[in-house]
């Protein structure tokens, strides 16, 4: 029985992971730490577990933690967990600076604890099947990729730069970049981006457009904009169109959904009937902890995705393509 604690419920994915854990027989939800006591207590009540106002007592009782704090706090919580030997599943992006990400990776390595980054899209069944087909080389040589990870504007701390590290580009670059890196095992060489605030009265980027060159001459574009209106029937999308010499592939990670027209709410919405990718991610992380395996999504994967987002901001400022470090 793996004992799991939650470190902050600031990111909405925490509620999905907690619901998943609650239903699992191979793990227990040991408790929730949250510096926001109201949010923490409510979540503890919802998931029938203990609320902790202090982090250390919770860490002492856990084998692993899921960190869903604001992005800029990932580092301090990861270091605290590593110090007492707790494994870490950390919400994306890994951190808000390269230095923080490197420190997290180093601390977990030194302490001998697992560090996995939550990119649940890897576990969406359409994406898993796409990966299998791509591994068989069915598209021939891959020439270019068109990606989008649109979303609605999330508000809250996502628009506070000191907590999020960036807006739409920070929030929505990393998923698609992670999928492309995972599919093809190639790193980005150069990044070109337009980044701006044009959709909302917020003091952070809410739209952008990225154009990347990967190793081996493959190129890709990615639209991370918070450009889904309030009336859009879903939170957003993760779409990939892959062009190879032998054919093309379209992936829609969230296509499996009903369209529900609800007069009582005056709203049209999508209702997913897909496999639960968050559950598959959490199950995988539990198996990493239980069986002492290597995480599928490493701290380095998190770092490379973060570097892509940071490079996009740099490129936009310089108005020119910039190299991406590896």
């Amino acid at each position, binding site marked *: 029985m793996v004992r799991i604690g939650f470190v902050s419920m600031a990111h909405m994915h925490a509620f999905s992971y907690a619901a998943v854990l609650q239903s699992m027989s191979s793990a227990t939800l040991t408790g929730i730490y949250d510096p926001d006591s109201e949010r923490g207590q409510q979540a503890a009540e919802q998931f029938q577990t203990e609320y902790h106002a202090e982090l250390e007592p919770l860490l002492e009782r856990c084998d692993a933690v899921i960190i869903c704090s604001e992005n800029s706090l990932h580092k301090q919580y990861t270091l605290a967990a590593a110090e007492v030997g707790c494994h870490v599943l950390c919400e994306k992006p890994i951190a808000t600076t390269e230095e923080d990400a490197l420190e997290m990776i180093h601390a977990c390595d030194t302490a001998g604890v697992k560090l996995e980054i939550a990119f649940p899209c890897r576990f969406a069944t359409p994406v898993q099947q796409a990966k299998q087909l791509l591994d068989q080389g069915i598209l*021939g*040589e891959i*020439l*270019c990729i*068109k990606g*989008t990870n649109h979303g609605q504007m999330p508000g809250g701390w996502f628009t506070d730069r000191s907590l999020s590290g960036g807006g739409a580009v920070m929030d929505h670059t990393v998923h698609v970049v992670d999928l492309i890196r995972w599919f093809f095992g190639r790193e980005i060489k150069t990044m*070109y*981006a*337009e980044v*701006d605030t*044009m*959709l*909302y009265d917020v003091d952070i980027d*809410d*739209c*952008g*457009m*990225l*154009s990347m*060159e990967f190793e081996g*001459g493959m*190129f*890709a*574009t990615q*639209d991370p*904009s918070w*450009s*889904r*209106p309030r*009336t*859009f029937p879903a939170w957003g999308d993760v779409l990939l169109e892959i*062009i190879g*010499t032998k*054919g*093309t592939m379209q992936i829609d990670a969230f296509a499996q959904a009903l369209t529900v027209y609800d007069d009582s709410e005056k709203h049209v919405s999508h209702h997913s009937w897909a496999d639960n990718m968050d559950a598959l991610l959490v199950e995988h992380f539990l198996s990493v902890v239980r069986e002492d395996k290597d995480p599928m999504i490493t701290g380095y994967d998190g770092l490379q995705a973060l570097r892509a987002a940071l490079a996009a901001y740099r490129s936009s400022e310089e*108005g*020119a*393509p910039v190299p991406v470090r590896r």
Partner: protein
Amino acid sequence: MQIGLIGCGSAAWAQAKAYHSLQLPVAAAADPDEKAAQDLAAYLGADAYPSLEKLLSSTDVDMLHICAPTSLHAKLVREGLEAGKHVLCEAPLTLDAETAKALVDLAEKGKRQLAVGHVFRYAPEYEAAKSQLEQGHLGSPAVVRTSRSRRTPIGWQRWYQDARLSGGVILDSMLHDLDFLIWCFGQPKRILVKTTRGRGLQGMEHALATVRMKNGVIAHMEAGWSNTSNADYTAFEISTRSGMISHDSREVKGLELDGVQNPLVTHGPASDLLVQNAYERQLQDVVRCFAANGKPRCTGRDALQTMQAGEAALASVAANSVIHLAQEVT
């Protein structure tokens, strides 16, 4: 208005059908391939000629419609304007902005009309999107995405496949979306384009572009020549401060057949489920404007702006970097 059609290949046939259904009088058709000229002329009840020169010396047309391969546009448009004719030229007008500018100047100097077939300015779905934006209720536009795919075009002696003659998918297809962006939002400020040309797609090509407009709009354009089963479509999505407009021709299924086939039911961007399709609307407007000295939706000068952006798109591919557009050519 007596009309002469120059070039009788596949592009001309699309136009010929529109002339036919509008019952606009085409007096003459010319093509160095005499059989092609005769076939098209027969369909339209016109006279066939082996060249523009012969057509001009034997007939008294008021307007020429250039449907020849792109690399011949400049010469044919110039000859037509010099002969005192109004000219409608299929897009792209030329392969570079300097040549386009010379043609525009020539038309203005000779007081002849020059229009260019950026036909999507007449496509009701694009027109409706522009009008929605102009009504203002959606707020200012921020992020625009366009997609466009067609079956890999072949053409006379495979001229489309020689990028020096056709500009590849960028001037053949992406230019229409660039024209739409310019029509709606004004000039681009900078552009970065990448394409698969020369990378083993065997005639097919796929290009992706990131554009920043001078008014701030960020745009992404996708254009493809493909031979897949779903090769013909157009799509766009315009996100604004208070909403979004989206269109995808693949989702527009006003009339479908299964198990039987009929040429009346087609699928593709220029939807025929209209009393008048975009080609017909364009011809009707251009002919009317040429007759009454009105202003068609895409004048030579409009096309020059679009050509300038198209040239920047090609330059971006050649330089593998972002191109900042110069001030407008005037």
